[in-house]
């Protein structure tokens, strides 16, 4: 029996050896086959596929296959595939996540870096892709959650207010909001100004600190500074609006009556949310009405001279350290993101804010962009005032489980403004340990 098994094993070894050598040869010399991973989202996938088609048309020896995953599955796949080294060559990644995967990503090749101009991108979105002074990817889009609000035309007109509103200061906004609040049986049924979704609260907090001349980082970005006088002033401002009655923090927050849905179901007159919500509303609530007719997207008043705000770094592309063709993969990344025509293609297809300055600032590109996404007209002038949120040890933990819950507790009357600031600072700084 053992002689037979040994014979079979020898035969197997010979066959495997022959197979391992034979088919490789000359055919694989020039062809480069890459895989690209992206999360499932129709317009994003369409845009990336169009860019792949354009690139492979210019480089016939390169083929790029896109594989998509449902969002939650995508995150889990990245978590498991990257340690196992099974990831694709090119990965669509949210800029803010990039540095936490930095060890597994290929830096921009030196030859490419020599000619690369980082100021071509807005700082807020590019900085998320820079880890330990090395560029680990390039952004497609500018992710903006603060700076402008959705406004409901019908509610403004019913309340006898001008539409679209042009607020010069926060008092005017609050005054308008209060006129549109509705209550029934002692419960608020329509919020005047809904700014209590998690992203809205956190980005408002960061923006107000910056606009008041403060900073939520220490000088070398090694610790948070969430209990500064500017931070406390920001919290007091939120508290004063809630106390005035623009929104009920128990009935309108991230878990109950989330801002986007509250707006498009006529439960909020003014909602702080990113411009992406326009496409979301038109898609999910087709009966609500058209942009520009039933609703609009208008700028918030600034507290200081400049409408400063902090922003996540948006979606972009990175290259795996494990890729066998990192130079080609990087060439595609640069082709897709740093070329103005291609960046415009992505932004117009997806309705996203450009990360590349040229797309937002060149008149021709800007006209094409606004034709596809008119809601961006409000935010384009604000983009130079954005700054990257900074590389936090755990951004989601700090945002959604520390800053937001403490502020909501404070607004619900469960703790004082000073306590909220102190606890946020303590818990957020503990994430560095």
């Amino acid at each position: 029996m053992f002689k037979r098994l040994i014979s079979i094993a020898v035969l197997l070894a010979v066959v495997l050896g022959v197979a391992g050598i034979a088919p490789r040869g000359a055919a694989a010399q020039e062809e480069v086959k890459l895989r690209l991973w992206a999360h499932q989202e129709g317009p994003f996938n369409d845009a990336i596929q169009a860019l792949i088609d354009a690139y492979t048309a210019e480089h016939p020896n390169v083929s790029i296959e896109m594989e998509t995953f449902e969002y939650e599955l995508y995150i889990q796949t990245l978590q498991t595939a990257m340690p196992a080294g099974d990831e694709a060559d090119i990965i669509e990644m949210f800029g803010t996540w990039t540095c936490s995967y930095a060890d597994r990503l290929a830096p921009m090749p030196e030859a490419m870096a020599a000619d690369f101009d980082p100021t071509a991108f807005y700082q807020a979105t590019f900085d998320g892709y820079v880890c330990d002074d090395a560029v680990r990817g390039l952004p497609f889009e500018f992710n903006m959650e603060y700076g402008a609000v959705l406004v409901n035309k019908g509610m403004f007109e019913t309340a006898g207010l001008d539409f679209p509103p042009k607020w010069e200061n926060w008092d005017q906004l609050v005054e308008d909001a209060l006129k549109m609040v509705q209550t029934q049986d002692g419960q608020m049924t329509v919020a005047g100004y809904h700014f209590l979704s998690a992203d809205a609260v956190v980005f408002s907090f960061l923006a107000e600190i910056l606009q008041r001349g403060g900073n939520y980082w220490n000088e070398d970005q090694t610790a948070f500074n969430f209990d500064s006088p500017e931070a406390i002033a920001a919290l007091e401002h939120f508290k004063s609006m809630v106390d005035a009655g623009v929104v009920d923090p128990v009935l309108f927050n991230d878990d109950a009556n989330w801002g986007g849905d509250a707006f498009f179901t006529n439960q909020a007159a003014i909602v702080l949310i990113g411009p992406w919500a326009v496409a979301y509303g038109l898609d999910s609530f087709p009966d609500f009405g058209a942009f520009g007719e039933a609703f609009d997207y208008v700028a918030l008043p600034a507290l200081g001279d400049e409408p400063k705000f902090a922003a996540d770094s948006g979606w972009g592309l990175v290259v795996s350290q494990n890729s066998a063709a990192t130079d080609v993969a990087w060439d595609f990344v640069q082709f897709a993101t740093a070329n103005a025509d291609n960046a415009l293609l992505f932004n117009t297809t997806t309705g996203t804010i450009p990360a590349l300055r040229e797309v937002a600032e060149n008149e021709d590109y800007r006209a094409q962009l606004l034709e596809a996404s008119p809601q961006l007209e409000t935010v384009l002038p604000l983009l130079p005032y954005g700054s990257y949120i900074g590389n936090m040890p755990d951004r989601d933990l700090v945002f959604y489980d520390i800053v937001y819950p403490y502020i909501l507790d404070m607004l619900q009357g469960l703790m004082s403004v000073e306590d909220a600031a102190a606890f946020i600072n303590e818990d957020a700084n503990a994430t560095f340990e």
Partner: protein
Amino acid sequence: MDTIDLQAYMLYWGMIGALVGASVTPLVYDRRHRNPWTGALIGLFVGVVSAEAFGWLTLRLLLERWSGAALLSLLGCLVLLIPLWWSVPERSRKGFQQRGFVSSSISPLMFYLLTMSIFPFLWAIILAFFDYSPRRVGGPILGLGEDNPFVGLAHFQEMWVGHTRNARMFQNSMNNTLLFAMIILPLNLAITLPLAALIESVHERLKPLFRAVYFLPVVTSSVGVAVMWGYIFHAQYGLLNQALKAFGMTPIAWLQDPRVEILGIPAAMFAVIVAYLWQDFGYNLIIFIAALQNIPISLKDAARVDGASPAQVFLHVTLPLLRPTIMVTSVLTMISSFQVFDIIQVMTNGGPGRIGKTDVVVLEIYKNAFRYERMGWAAAMALVLFVLVLLVTTAQRWLLRTTWEY
């Protein structure tokens, strides 16, 4: 080979090879009067090796020329297994006959149990002693060490005596889990036991109807149940608040307001308990009905002849005889209460409040593992939950043990 998912195919090959090798080979060994358990082991090894090697070889050689190559590759395990089966020499001694079927049935299942349950369990135990995150590149062995350092008992120490946010969240979730389980268990038994006795007492033709109606929520999707109860408890449009308003009472933000309490229990916790009980109690009810039907009628008749009232028969005959069933249902209910996740995630997501009023341990494990990618900390919490369930189950078995049968 680049057009298909090679990782997935490697998994398919291994699984098919293991299944075929470990199930057929013991039968062959048995027929040749050899030890079928040895056959299962050899079959498993040869099946997996053959499947991987020849599966890969088939794709490598044929995929670009023939689309059926992917399907054919799934048969790679047979390349070495068939010669193996053919080459097993026959023994004259008939020592192992009849065990072939047992071995061929159990071996593949054992393999799947080992790979799908035991290995992940052991991996979780190991992770509990490391500060492991899949984002970080760790040491060469399974990513452990270096940036994912060994921390010994630090996670457990932090859970019990720490004052960090992690510790506070764990302690809160453990308190909530215990509160949830301690309320669910007695309430469940208090509802299901008398109800089962009542259903047993109705006309034979009505029993199936009651059983079906009460069992329906059990087979309903937990997410659906959570959404439905979420609407019932909705602050503005909920059925419950509409009823309160009709009676002139003030509506309550059941799921949103962290300040509201009902009998000392947070309103949100009260709401999820109601939803969970509604869905879960039918399961125990069916078990109790089955147990009641198994109690010999002669025992009850004997008690009645001795002058016992219906209540006395229930208390002194039925209830003691249900003790083993109560033990089983208690253990099952306690375990499922400790593992509650879906209803709470959908209804409250652990909230309301910063220190979530309905945040339970499994929800914390999920958040830490898959949202914050702190696998080490999540594994340590999972290990603590495992030990807790083990201890509670053991205690219940000891308290409700019986030494007799009927």
